[in-house]
């Protein structure tokens, strides 16, 4: 008889997500991994999210709190989790059928990795006469710094810290940047593990907002790296599976003439 599977704690934050919560939970419960702890952290929902969560009975743990935002809900889930491996899923998304079957062995086979990260397939609403009738794949699967695509060893949150609750969006982007700055080993893999619904209302506006968040996250990361080094921001180490080109910092500027340094003996 083999060793007992590691307990995976799955944290599902929700705020007024009754429409898709049942599907999200079902996609977690359908995983073939033998030991799961499903934590639904309700961030003050005023719709039927609580009833949906409770409909799953003892298969899930339900925790309600006052509304404080998605990062606070995720953090509460991390505090409540008892598993040695942590995973996340937003209430309107779905895991692939094989997410944990793929990712748990990958972590086991790569003891140096703290986090494994798969790909997301985005889904856009399909409209018929002004009403959404379903969702269809949009674009190619993508690697993204999204906790819903990840499986993490619990201790990495002790090292990196929790999610920044001042960020109402992209809190996991920020967490991944901090993790990389600390040298946390992230291992990428190409399989799709997440089906992520995309709001179809205003793609241009969402893209512009996404661009602004991207730039702000990068600038924050650069600032932290400058503070750490006392000089130019260093490059982040390349991720396993990111590609063969080495990470580099290239400075393009005519270098002003300086007096030669005195070399130490």
């Amino acid at each position, binding site marked *: 008889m083999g060793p007992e599977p590691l307990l995976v704690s799955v944290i599902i934050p929700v705020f*007024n997500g009754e429409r898709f919560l049942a599907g999200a939970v079902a996609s977690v419960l359908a995983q073939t991994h033998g030991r799961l702890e499903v934590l639904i952290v309700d961030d003050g929902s005023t719709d039927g999210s609580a009833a949906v969560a409770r409909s799953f009975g003892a298969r899930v743990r339900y925790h309600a709190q006052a509304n404080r935002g998605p990062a606070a809900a995720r953090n509460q889930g991390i505090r409540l989790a008892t598993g040695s491996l942590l995973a996340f899923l937003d209430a309107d998304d779905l895991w692939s059928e094989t997410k944990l079957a793929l990712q748990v062995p990958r972590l086991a086979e790569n003891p140096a990795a703290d986090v494994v990260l798969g790909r997301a397939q985005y889904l856009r609403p399909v409209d018929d006469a002004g*009403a959404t009738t379903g969702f269809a794949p949009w674009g190619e699967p993508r690697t993204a710094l999204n906790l819903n695509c990840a499986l993490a060893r619990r201790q990495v949150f002790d090292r990196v810290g929790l999610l920044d609750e001042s960020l109402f969006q992209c809190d996991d982007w920020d967490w991944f940047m901090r993790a*990389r700055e600390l040298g946390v080993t992230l291992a990428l893999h190409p399989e799709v593990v997440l089906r992520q619904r995309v709001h179809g209302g205003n793609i241009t506006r969402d893209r512009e907002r996404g661009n602004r968040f991207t730039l702000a996250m990068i600038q924050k990361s650069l600032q932290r790296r400058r503070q750490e080094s006392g000089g130019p921001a260093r490059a982040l180490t390349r991720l396993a599976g990111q590609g063969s080109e080495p990470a580099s910092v290239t400075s*393009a500027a005519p270098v002003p003439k300086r007096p030669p340094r005195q070399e130490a003996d």
Partner: protein
Amino acid sequence: MVPDTRLRINRPQVIDETFADEAVVVNLANGNYYTLSRVGAEVWQCLEQGFAPARIVEELCARYAGPQAEIATAVAQFVDALLAAALVVPATDTDTPAPPPPALPSPAVPAPVRPAFQPPVMQEYTDMQGLLLVDPVHEVDETGWPNVKREGGTP
């Protein structure tokens, strides 16, 4: 690079934002990101306004103390680096025309108080290749998050 060649920011492939005294620029085609600090950010803002390199040199000469030839060389090298990184491309006739030069490029500071010219600096980072794709941001508002506003439907 011919000093009078107009250039434009290579949008939408390139996104950028200016923070305090630096510009952060991302090339979404390859995931490389760049920080342009101090004078580099000023050059970037001039390019955004449609100024040709020769015009940018005039601007910097009005703001900083230093030999015009040195400033011109630094600008030319910096612009060549931006072109090589595909952050800027030559403007076409259909692009927005450059604004007419004002009587003074900017309030000319008397020579004794102008700071010394420092060459523009661009630092390139390649450690986010493959990751800097637009990750569609969930709609988040007071009614709920993640929030897909439309009715009905399951995948």
